[in-house]
């Protein structure tokens, strides 16, 4: 009996058949984290006592035939930007080093009510700002496939935790690729649901018009199962859309007849690594052999997405991070301050470099005299990009392309050029800017490093990207490959 690299479906089957208990499974992962995480640095906090307590309760429910959901007793991890009541939540910032949230994020409540066992909180770029998980105030998360390389970001700890088998699944957030990029670099499935599909209540805010909670799993079926749990509407977030939650798992497909796939020309430009393009084209051929009709489509304005994103995100960051003033919670520099303004200044020195840079850029874009030229312009171009995607979606069901333009960077390579780091999200941000949904599913290897296929769908058509991803995943065996640690 092996416990390595279980999917949710595998784990639940073993629990149901009495081959293992949730407590045993939880201990197995805690041991693994204890032994191996020093090589990877996936987790900021591990919560063994809480995990074992919840696992014992789940075993008790199972014995009484009183299970709460199809994931009851399954252990996983949470990105440390989702607040957890009474459990330290840092957003990988020194600002929140000692922050104990007084409440629980909506998605965390939903998962705990479903019986999830939380093993711990995963590392990220500070406040989810970055593409590498190098910008964490704590440590750099390493790629389990090659520990000399970055794992991607900002949900790098979550991606690494799933790739390294520290738990069965993980929750992350994706504002501009922060789930799909690290998923593509770790051979995991990464889902960014449509904006509004999952509540953001209790997600430490970065850019509120783009932030969205999503998933890392080892199969598309697992992702579909989890999405049906976390997509529950929430009164506490007015952008959480009051739509009934589909049973995503029952809508998965294995045959793609009747599905039209658009390969986006702009996603296959010269700037994208040749081997990545090759893997993507092979995946497209595979979709065709499963019955899909494939067309090449052009979305010229998608190329402007990153520029739009680089104005909107810092603008929203500069407003969202105003709250860190050293007064109500978070780091306070009051001891060194002589008056109130000084408290703000002394406290806010604790932001990391990238946070400061984005606050500066956003304050500039929103400042008098520049607002129209930058923020307003970006907002209008955003609407135009969205419109262009809508038009293409009149003729295709899903769009495909690569997730990342390159393989994961070497740690210690010159990662100090902020523009170079933003560029890693070049192909991921159009989904966020246009308010669509997207998934990264493993589609091959180049130089022994994973490559991801991106499947993008219409707003609130998450079931179709999952259906296509599932058909592709079931007909390939990329997910059977695992890193050696």
């Amino acid at each position: 009996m092996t416990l390595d690299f279980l999917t949710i479906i595998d784990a639940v089957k073993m629990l149901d058949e009495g081959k293992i208990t949730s407590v045993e499974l939880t201990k197995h992962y805690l041991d693994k984290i204890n032994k191996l995480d020093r090589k990877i640095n996936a987790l900021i906090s591990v919560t063994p006592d809480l995990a074992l307590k919840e696992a014992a309760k789940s075993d008790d429910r199972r014995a009484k035939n009183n299970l709460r959901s199809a994931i009851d007793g399954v252990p996983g991890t949470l990105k440390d930007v989702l607040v957890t009541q009474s459990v330290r939540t840092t957003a990988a910032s020194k600002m929140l080093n000692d922050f104990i949230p007084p409440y629980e994020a909506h998605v965390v409540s939903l998962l705990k009510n479903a019986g999830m066992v939380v093993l711990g909180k995963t590392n990220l770029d500070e406040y989810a700002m970055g593409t590498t998980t190098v910008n964490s105030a704590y440590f750099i998360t390493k790629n389990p496939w090659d520990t000399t390389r970055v794992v991607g970001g900002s949900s790098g700890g979550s991606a690494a935790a799933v790739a390294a088998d520290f738990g069965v699944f993980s929750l992350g957030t994706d504002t501009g690729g922060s789930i799909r990029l690290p998923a593509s670099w770790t051979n995991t499935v990464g889902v960014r649901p449509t904006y509004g599909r999952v509540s953001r209540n209790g997600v430490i805010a970065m850019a509120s018009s783009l932030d969205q909670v999503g998933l890392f799993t080892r199969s598309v079926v697992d992702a579909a199962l989890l999405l049906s749990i976390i997509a529950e509407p929430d009164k506490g977030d007015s952008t959480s859309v009051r739509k009934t939650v589909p049973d995503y798992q029952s809508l998965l497909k294995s045959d793609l007849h009747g599905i039209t796939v658009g390969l986006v020309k702009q996603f296959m430009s010269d700037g994208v690594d040749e081997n990545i393009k090759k893997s993507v084209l092979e995946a497209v051929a595979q979709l065709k052999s499963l019955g899909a009709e494939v067309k090449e489509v052009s979305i010229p304005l998608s190329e402007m997405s990153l520029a739009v994103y680089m104005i909107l995100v810092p603008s929203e960051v500069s407003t969202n991070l105003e709250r860190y003033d050293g007064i109500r919670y978070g780091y306070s520099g009051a001891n060194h301050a002589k008056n109130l303004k000084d408290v703000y200044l002394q406290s806010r020195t604790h932001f990391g470099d990238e946070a400061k840079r984005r606050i500066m850029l956003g304050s500039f874009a929103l400042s008098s005299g520049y607002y129209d030229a930058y923020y307003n312009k970006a907002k209008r171009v955003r609407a135009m990009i969205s419109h262009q995607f809508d038009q293409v979606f009149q003729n295709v069901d899903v769009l495909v392309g690569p997730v990342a333009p390159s393989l994961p960077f070497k740690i210690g390579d010159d990662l100090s050029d902020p523009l170079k780091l933003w560029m890693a999200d070049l192909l991921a941000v159009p989904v966020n800017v246009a308010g669509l949904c997207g998934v990264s599913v493993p589609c091959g290897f180049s130089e022994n490093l994973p490559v991801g296929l991106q499947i993008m769908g219409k707003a609130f058509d998450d079931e179709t990207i999952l259906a296509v991803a599932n058909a592709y995943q079931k007909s390939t065996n990329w997910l059977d490959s695992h890193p050696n640690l």
Partner: protein
Amino acid sequence: MDKIDKTEVKHIAELASLSLTEKEVDRFSVDLTNILKYINQLDEVKVDSGAIDNESLYNIWREDEITNINMRDQLLQNTPDQKDGFIRVKAVFGDS
């Protein structure tokens, strides 16, 4: 705008309540100028009058129901300086 010079950096830092070291001022001037160069490609996009931003957006209201009550102590558990259930702050003017 083509360049964010050091004077501009200091002005923005003041707006954002950030106290920057001279080294940070130098670096951010270079970084922000480079980022601006990339962003300026938006100049190529002619915004057509049809592109009304947020045309599909609308406000979502709900009843203002009281749900979480008596959480004062939990809410204050992260507050650095407090007295008798109140948050204590420095004086707005001068030394305190």
